[in-house]
């Protein structure tokens, strides 16, 4: 393994850990679906960046920032119109992104892949992971109160609207970290599926958070191994393409199905 590959492997495992924690709060806040569609808005950013030849991550970051602010405003009014608006705007983003992204880059933008990282991007990634973990540690108590009752949290002095914005920004930062590996279509699943596994297996908060993070790291670790060792499997005339993103989400889904068989601990 080269140094660049080691950087990538370390960063994707750390991203998985952070995604498991963020996913736990996303699930408790009942934002799984909204959170998933937020990740789709990364695609037009990736597409534009590829089209004009600048770093795709910068394009994705700009698009995610815009998307985050948009969904934050939409969330303030919880009407049917809001739900419809979220559905329409974010699937439209996926369509526009598909049109904008050059054909040769589309599959990678949608489904990701294993990419070697230089030292600079590795350090930037590490800093982003630290920001996400720091947010969870510092704000977890306020998040817990606000997801139980926004009103009670506000009466205790929590600025719930601002907290929601911070949470969405952290969600988007997690998406941004994962998008180069899993692609715009699948990165949301890295946040949601491990949390669903954690919820299925536990009923205390600490166990839930740790199990989600562990399930996420396990999915990424196994998915990465499968994808690197055997990127294509032939079964008869059919060739299965085990790219990184689908391999990780495939493993996570199998773990989720297995978790359905287990009783809660």
């Amino acid at each position, binding site marked *: 393994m080269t140094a660049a590959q080691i950087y990538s492997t370390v960063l994707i495992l750390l991203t998985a850990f952070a995604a498991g924690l963020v996913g736990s709060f996303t699930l408790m806040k009942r934002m799984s679906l909204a959170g998933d569609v937020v990740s789709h808005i990364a695609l037009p950013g990736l597409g534009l960046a590829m089209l004009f030849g600048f770093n795709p991550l910068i394009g994705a970051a700009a698009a995610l920032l815009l998307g985050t602010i948009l969904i934050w405003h939409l969330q303030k009014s919880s009407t049917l119109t809001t739900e419809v608006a979220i559905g329409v705007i974010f699937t439209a983003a996926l369509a526009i992104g598909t049109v904008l992204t050059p054909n040769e880059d589309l599959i990678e933008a949608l489904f990701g892949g294993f990419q070697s990282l230089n030292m600079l991007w590795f350090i930037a990634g590490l800093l982003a992971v630290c920001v996400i973990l720091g947010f969870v540690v510092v704000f977890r*108590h*306020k998040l*817990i109160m606000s997801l*139980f*009752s926004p009103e009670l949290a506000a*009466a*205790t002095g*929590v600025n719930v609207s601002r907290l929601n914005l911070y949470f969405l920004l952290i969600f988007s930062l997690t998406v941004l970290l994962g998008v180069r590996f899993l692609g715009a279509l699948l990165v949301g699943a890295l946040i949601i599926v491990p949390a669903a596994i954690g919820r299925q297996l536990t009923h205390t*908060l600490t166990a*839930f958070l740790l199990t989600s993070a562990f399930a996420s790291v396990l999915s990424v670790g196994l998915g990465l191994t499968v994808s690197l060792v055997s990127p294509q499997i032939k079964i008869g005339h059919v060739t299965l393409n085990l790219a990184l993103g689908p391999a990780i989400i495939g493993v996570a889904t199998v773990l989720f199905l297995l978790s359905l068989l287990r009783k809660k601990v």
Partner: protein
Amino acid sequence: MNLLTVKHLSVELENRSVVEDLSFDLAAGERLSILGPNGAGKTVLLKALLNLLPHQGEIVWAPNVRIGYVPQKIDADTHLPLTFTDLFRAKCRTLNISSDQIGEISESVGLTPQILRTPVGHLSGGQFQRSLIAFSLIGNPNVLLMDEPTASVDEPGEEHIYELINRLQTQHQLASIMVSHDLSFVFRYATKVLCLNRLQVCFGSPTEALSTDMLTKLYGESVGFYDHHHDHQPKPNSLRQ
């Protein structure tokens, strides 16, 4: 000195006046009950007092005030892997205070270790309400705002909750503002009453302010007044609409 002074308070929601021109006050240790029919603006008034809603007029809390709040109802998701122990700790950390008081408060409202270990969505109405009262007591409040704290509790449990609130108020010398439909509670425990039907219909001591004429004005002719007794049979002095 007053803990709270309210002058000409009005709240509009979606261009509709919900409460209008309310003026009242609350001194340390006083117990104010808010009475009024459904839709009179009682919950909106409490939320305005907590600064959770935009409003016009003056709401002035004393500088030393520490507010505990018991909301009307929280529909806790059964899927939440949260216990009230988690929530009590979360409140302590948010207020930046020690969590040493959690044990004592839990004991004083009758929360057993088993209740404290049970996820919030799986508690009975009474257990949940006791837990919310305990939550409101964290941070040593000197005034409690309670919005129908027995709304999701059955009748025998209701009486226990009222007795608990009364005991805690006496023990901690708490002032309170409570929305309640139970006239027997108002007559037994309240020192002041505010009648609300969008406008302020009455304000004063229960015996002076709550005449039969006033109650009829507040609730209409069709309402009967019954007393609320412990054998769960309707008796004169409680409201039945």
